[in-house]
Every structure is written in structure tokens, then in C-alpha cells.
């Protein structure tokens, strides 16, 4: 397994990150406008000084080499938008918030999605099945920028149960986590239901039934384990997506996470911040996929040989 992980790191992760960093570096320089263009024009003297301070006066290829040498030591440089902060510092301060939000959302999505899948699969093509899947599909159909304000309207403004926004107490975390998690409930529910329906026709389930085991026990103890394999494969990108794709939810609920920096950096042409967040998110994505590959192989004996 160690060999498998090392192979993934040296032959997939690092080359991928280098390619991503290189493409991003040159792509952002192609975008019109620069980090210092503002509505009120900057004098040429000031612009010269700013370019010199951030090394933008050097040849583009020299800048690229300097930057690549820097990120090896996890130094993403100073932010253009926030001159008193380094990109590494901004990521370190805001990523734990996005991570926490993503973990809560993932837990909600897993628990609700699997439960909904179980309910639906326990009696396929029945009213129960259709109703459960229809409700969970709502999470996909209603975008987060609609779902978030709706939840706020009901639970904050009408009922007064939760604050409208912020990230101070546990009550602040509930509505954003539900909003973000709901998108994935339907995916997980559908995968669980599909997996269960496939598993329930297997011979070993028939054997269990023949032994006289109760249907509930068959469903949970015997069928669910096998049915969760597709869910597990989905969880890698889903977890990475939840952690990195929370921009809308962070904006609606005014949450100090990394998602806001990720998007704002592009609008601000904050070159170093764009590079830092892209490389960091790419690293997260690749890592989660690797973890899921390992877990899937551990759960599924037929895939264990791939770990060698």
C-alpha cells in the first residue's frame, strides 16, 4: 500500500500539480486588466513601484521560475489584494472554516442520503420510493443561492431559531451546512438506492432470506455494505467539492472561508492568491481521490491487488 501511495504522489500528484500551476500561471496573465487597475487611475510612478515590489517588472518566464521555486517551500508570496498578508497565511486562516463547513455538510449529505436511499430501496417503485427520491432530488433542483435565503427566511427571520449569518457559534453552522449538504443528498440517495437494488437480487441475499432473516437486517447488514461501494467512490470528489466549492454558501451566510477568496482572487486579478488557491485546491482534489481509491480497494477485496 505504501508503494501505491508513493507511486501516486511521485508519478501523479506532483506532475499534475506542476502542470496545473504552469497552466494557471500563464492563463491568468492572459486575462485583460491587472491587479492594480482601479476605477481611479494610478500614476505611472506608483504603478512602476508596485510592479517592482511584486516582481512584475521582470520577464514573465523569470517570474514563472521564481514562483515555481517558491511554491516548493509552500511560499505562495504576498497577496496583491491584501498587501499585509501572505497567501499562505490567508489560506491557513480561512481553509479550516471551509473544511469545517464541508465536513458538516458531508455528514448531513451522507446520513440523509443513505437513509433516503434505504427508505426508497426498501420498497422500490412504490409511493414511498417516489416520494423519498423526489424530496431528495429537490436538493439538486433548487440551487444553493435559492435554498440558502429560503432557509434563512424560515428559520432565522420568521422563527428566529438561527442567526442569519456569521461563523461564531454552533447555531451559525447549521443553516449553511444544510444548504451545502442538500446538493449531495440526492446524489448519495440515488447511488445508495441503485446499489441496494443491484445487491438485493444477488444470490447471497436470497440465501439470507431463505435462512429467514428479517428484511430489515438483510437490508442493513448484508446489502448495504456492498451497495455503498459506488457511494464511497463518489465521496472522494464530493468531499473535495464540498470543501472547495462553498463559495455561494460562504457568500450568502457571510462565512470567512477560502471559497470567497478563491472566486474574489480571480475578479481582483490577485495573481498570487489565484495561484495559491488553485494549487491548494488541486492538491485537495488529488489527495481525496487517492484516499478514496485506497479505501475502495480496502473495502472491496477484488480491488485489493491494485494497492500492491
Amino acid at each position, binding site marked *: 500500500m505504501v508503494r501505491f501511495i508513493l507511486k501516486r504522489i511521485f508519478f501523479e500528484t506532483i506532475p499534475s500539480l506542476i502542470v496545473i500551476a504552469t497552466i494557471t500561471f500563464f492563463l491568468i496573465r492572459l486575462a485583460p486588466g491587472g491587479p492594480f487597475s482601479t476605477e481611479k487611475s494610478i500614476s505611472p510612478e506608483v504603478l512602476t513601484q508596485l510592479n517592482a515590489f511584486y516582481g512584475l517588472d521582470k520577464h514573465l518566464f523569470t517570474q514563472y521560475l521564481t514562483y515555481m521555486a517558491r511554491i516548493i517551500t509552500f511560499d505562495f508570496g504576498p497577496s496583491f489584494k491584501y498587501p499585509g498578508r501572505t497567501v499562505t497565511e490567508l489560506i491557513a486562516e480561512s481553509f479550516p472554516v471551509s473544511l469545517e463547513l464541508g465536513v458538516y455538510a458531508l455528514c448531513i449529505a451522507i446520513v440523509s442520503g443513505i437513509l433516503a436511499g434505504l427508505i426508497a430501496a426498501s420498497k422500490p417503485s412504490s409511493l414511498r420510493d417516489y416520494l423519498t427520491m423526489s424530496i431528495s432530488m429537490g436538493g439538486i433542483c433548487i440551487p444553493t443561492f435559492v435554498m440558502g435565503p429560503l432557509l434563512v427566511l424560515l428559520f432565522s427571520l420568521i422563527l428566529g431559531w438561527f442567526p*442569519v449569518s456569521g461563523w461564531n457559534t454552533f447555531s451559525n453552522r447549521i443553516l449553511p451546512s444544510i444548504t451545502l449538504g442538500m446538493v449531495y443528498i440526492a446524489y448519495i440517495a440515488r447511488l445508495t438506492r441503485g446499489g441496494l437494488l443491484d445487491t438485493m437480487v444477488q444470490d447471497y441475499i436470497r440465501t439470507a432470506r431463505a435462512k429467514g432473516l428479517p428484511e430489515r437486517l438483510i437490508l442493513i447488514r448484508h446489502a448495504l455494505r456492498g451497495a455503498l461501494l459506488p457511494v464511497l467512490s463518489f465521496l472522494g470528489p464530493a468531499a473535495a467539492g464540498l470543501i472547495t466549492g462553498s463559495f455561494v454558501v460562504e457568500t450568502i451566510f457571510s*462565512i470567512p472561508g477560502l471559497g470567497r477568496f478563491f472566486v474574489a482572487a480571480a475578479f481582483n486579478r490577485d495573481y498570487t492568491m489565484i495561484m495559491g488557491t488553485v494549487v491548494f485546491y488541486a492538491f485537495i482534489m488529488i489527495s481525496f481521490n487517492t484516499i478514496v481509491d485506497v479505501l475502495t480497494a480496502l473495502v472491496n477485496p477484488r480491488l485489493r491487488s491494485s494497492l500492491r
Partner: protein
Amino acid sequence: MKYFCIFYMTAAAIILLAISSCKNQRRDTIVSLGTKNGVLYFGNQTEPEDLDPHIVTGVPEFHILQSLFEGLVTPDPRDLHPLPGAAHSWDISEDNLVYTFHLRSEATWSNGEMVKASDFVFSFQRILSPRLGSEYAYMLYCIDNAEKYHKGALKDFARVGARAKDDTTLIIRLGSPTPYFMSLIMHDSWYPVHPPTILKFGNIDSRGTRWTRPENFTGNGAFKLADWQINKIINVVKRADYWDAQNVKLNGINFYPIENNQTEERMFRNDELHVTTNLPLQKIDWYKNNAPHLLHIDPYLGTYYYICNINRPPLNNKKLRKALALAIDRKSLTDDILKGGQIPAGSFTPPNTAGYLFDPVVTFDTIEARKILSETGFKSGDSLPPISVLYNTSESHHIIAQAIQQMWKRYLGINVTLVNQEWKVYLASKTKKEYDIARMGWIGDYNDPNSFLDLWLTGGGNNNTGWSSPTYDSLVKQASKSADQVERFRLFSQAESIFLDELPAIPIYFYTNVYLLKPSVKGWYSNILNMHNYKHLYLE
């Protein structure tokens, strides 16, 4: 079936519980607690870029800085006239070139040290240091030799007109009379910084050092920086050792960076904020009809306008620009579309800017507009070369552009296309003059017509129209140096007449500041610069 029942019964229970407890039974809201504790909850738009007064340029930063620093003078909250600040008095020489400020001996930095005249000189040297790359250094160009020093033509700062005679006497010598000087020095670029703190974390011209962190921060304002969590909160607390502490009624201010104005409005509605920075366009009517006591619409020192690229046909035709300007129904635009109390702009300088009044000359007159269009040589609107209107992505810019597009089509038969670009792309297009007509907005840096009319000087960095008039340049330069206010306004008026006759930019409306404010906030007055010195505020 059992799971099915559990699932739906839980959902039903939540809904029932929700309905049954619909009445909000909370006793203390965040705002009521804040009011009780003397803490103001302030919606502040975005995360500040920094808290260094010599680096930052934005309004959200200014909201925070004015609590942490105090300039030589501070604005009166009602009419913005200069009140004593770090200086208790000042003398002006007869030739209006030398200003002598007498500093308070009791004024201290937040670390207890005295605020000295030399601290101000150090601060002026810092912002003018070329290597610092301060975008607002030009605000100090009125000081003798300051521009030369900033542009590197002068190396010795001793030759710049700022000198500390002793600890409490600061002498500023101007290059030429600057009648708006006392208004200018209220700007945050004139705030002093604490020299030992700056030098502890870098050189005088070091950019982006750690001195602005709460644990390192030193300011001379009524409040000190207690907490700064990125994208979450900036908390300032009252300084017990501030020279005028007995008159500061607030115990603290929490600034929240809330980028989404819908979220900000919801927070206000949920009693989580005392004051917002904005109000979404679509909520204005609701507040007007249902809660007018919470809605505030104040005049603001800014003009919204369209610039014309006069290097490009057909906008190089003055008559066409005039016809377009006359065919905009500004009143309908402000009353029926924007609804935020904006004032239709018949001139470029906002009315009553430091007492300057200019009769509106750009009116809505479709008959005159059609007549002028017929004189342009174009037989009809259809025979014109294609014209596009460029604006940056924003709901309000889009609505305004659509309305004006319809007006020009209806009244002049001119078809224009709308081009929407992302902010930085739009800025690049504007700077490279790759546009026909582009939307613009200008907020005055200080309360004087010069802040608006010097925009259009030949070669000015913000004059992206290609327009140039030596007579206009001469009038504005004369006015900016004249000490006689009546004479200045006469010169500005002549210059503005030339500008409005040529119309390289078509004024559309004057800004207002539309926001929500809880009645518990007292001492808050409407003023044209939206400056609210927190030491005059209280909560009850």
C-alpha cells in the same frame, strides 16, 4: 415501512414545530445587547485590504480607519467643517501658503506615547516615499515640493514643506494657495502613523508589513484595534487614554465585512446590525412603504455619467453627444428605475459641493435633441455608425444602460448595443479607449468642486475620453490656486460651462447613499461625504 414512517414523521414534526412557534420569542437580540453595552454593529461591505492609512484607498477601509486614527482636524458630523482633532488650533498665513498647527500635548498614541508634530512629518515622508507605492500620495501634492519628492526628482525630504518646529507645532508650507486645504487634510491619507511601530516592522517605505496586526497596531484615534479576523470581524474598543475619552460614548464597534447586500439586509432585519452600507435596489420600495423610519437616503458627493470616446467617430461629433445627452429622461430613470432618491444630473459637479452651485444645463428635451441630431449630418439615427455602451457587470448598471438604450431608440431612433464586461476587463477597455460610450462613476475625495473638475484636465489619468481644452485647463488651474472663494467658483463655473458645452461626458445622476439605520443610533447625521465620526455617536 418503519424507516419511511420515521423519516416523514420527523419532517412533519419539524414543520409543525416551526409553525407552532412562529412567533419570535427571543428577548434580547444582538442589536439590543449591543445598544445596552454601547457596541455598534456596523455592516461594512468588504474585507479591508489593510489598515495602513497610507496604503488603502477604499471606503470600507476608511470606515474603520476613522475610528483608529485622528487627523489634524476632524469633520463636523453635520456640515463637515473642520473641528479640532490632533491639533487644537491652527494659524494660516496672510498669503495662504503657510499653515501652522498647534497640537494637543495631551493627545497620545494607543501605546501611551505623545502624538508629536514630528510624527506627522514622518507620516508625510512615508506616504510620499516613492518605494511605498501609495496610490493616494497625490493628495499631499499641495505641500511645497511634495510632488517632486514623490516622483523622485527631489531626494532630500527636508526641502519638502512640512516641518516640526517643536513637539506641538507643525508647519506646513504649500506650493501654491489651496483653498480646500482644510477639507483635504480630513482625508485618511493625511492620518499620522506611529514612527517607532512602522520602523519596528520595516523601513519607512516598507509596504505590507505586520504593523497593522491587532497585537502590533498603534493608532491615535478614539478607538483601538482589538480583534481582526479575516472576512469575519474587525472589533475596535474605546481607548480610555484618548484625550477626549469623556465625550466618546460608544464602548466599541464591530465591523462586519458582508459582501452580499441581500445578506446585509437580512442581518439588519434580524437585528444583527445597527447600520448597513447598502440596500438592495429591489428592497427600497418595501422599506419606503413599510419601514420608512429605518431607511436613509442621503445625498452623496458623487456623479454617475457616461464618457464618450471622442477619438472615435461618430462620438467625435459634439452635436451628436449633445443630442444623446438631451434625450435621456433622467427623472424617469431616478424615480421609476433606481428609486434611491438619486438626483438627475444637469451638470457634472454635485449641487452644493462646498457651497458651489451650478445651474443644470443638461436637461431632457427631445425636440431640441432631434433638432441637434438633424444638424449632425446624419439623416437619421439609422444612418449612424454602430455605437456601443460599455459597462461593468452589475445589476444597476445593466438596468440603467437598458433604459438609456430604449430612450435613445425612442427619442432619436438611434440603436446602440450594450456591452457588459467583467470589472477588470472593463477597466482595461476603458484605459485603452476601446469603447464608444462607457459608464463611469466618480466620488469626490474631498468637498470641493476641484475634486470633480480637475478630472478633465488634459492628460489627466482619469480623463479617458481623449477630450482636451486649453481654456478649460487654464480656468481649473487658476481656480484651484485662487484664495478668493467667489472668484474660484466663478472660474469653476466658466470651466464647467465649457465642459458641458462639449460634453465629453454625459452626466446622468448624482449619487445618494441608501442604507438602513436603527433608531437606537443617535448622533448620526447625513452629510455629503458619508463621514460619521464615531466619537459623536451613541446608542440608546
